[in-house]
């Protein structure tokens, strides 16, 4: 499946794009997504360990499975206000 991943803040700048697409096996976990992403975008490797992953706008665990149509986003450390 093709999964769209939203990027923000430092991760967006490091990637040079606000969203990207990854090819993943259906039902791949968040952890597998991160591994695939690090392989495809090595320049994100320093920032990825600090980021949380949101699936459908909720922070997900490493083992959460991703399904077609899910909204996936990488959340680097936040700092509103």
């Amino acid at each position, binding site marked *: 499946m093709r999964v769209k991943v939203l990027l923000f*803040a*430092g991760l967006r700048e490091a990637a040079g794009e606000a969203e990207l697409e990854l090819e993943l096996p259906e039902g791949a976990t968040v952890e597998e997504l991160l591994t695939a992403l690090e392989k495809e975008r090595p320049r994100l490797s320093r920032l990825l360990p600090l980021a949380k992953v949101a699936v459908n*706008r*909720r922070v997900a665990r490493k083992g959460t499975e991703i399904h077609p149509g899910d909204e996936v986003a990488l959340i680097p450390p*936040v*700092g*509103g*206000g």
Partner: protein
Amino acid sequence: MEDLVKITEEPIDLEEVASALSSPELGAILTFVGTVRGIEDGERISYLEYEAYEEMAKEELLAICREIKARWPTVQRVAFVHRIGRVGVGEAAVAIGVSAPHREETFPALAYAVDRLKETVPIWKKQVGEKGARWKPAK
């Protein structure tokens, strides 16, 4: 009236916040405004640039509104307005308010609202100053 949750590129309108929190039963309105400081750790700041994952940020803010009203039941309204994009020194980046019939619960509720905003809501700030630009996580 609903809670006010808004992420906007426009300057924050304090009258809008006050009016969202006002009602004849609510005698106590407490509001926090966070503005951009001109100096950070000795560095002269030019401006901050805020970015949000808007859809998720709004859902998180609405969840915080619900948490607050569950925990401090006299609090009847909550308002979060966060500006995004470039915010100049001295300008408001965020306004957060709560209102209740009496003041007692407004203080802990608002302190909690401010803390939670900084910890869990997907909004980022880039500080641009004389030493360059960098993304600043909440302290």
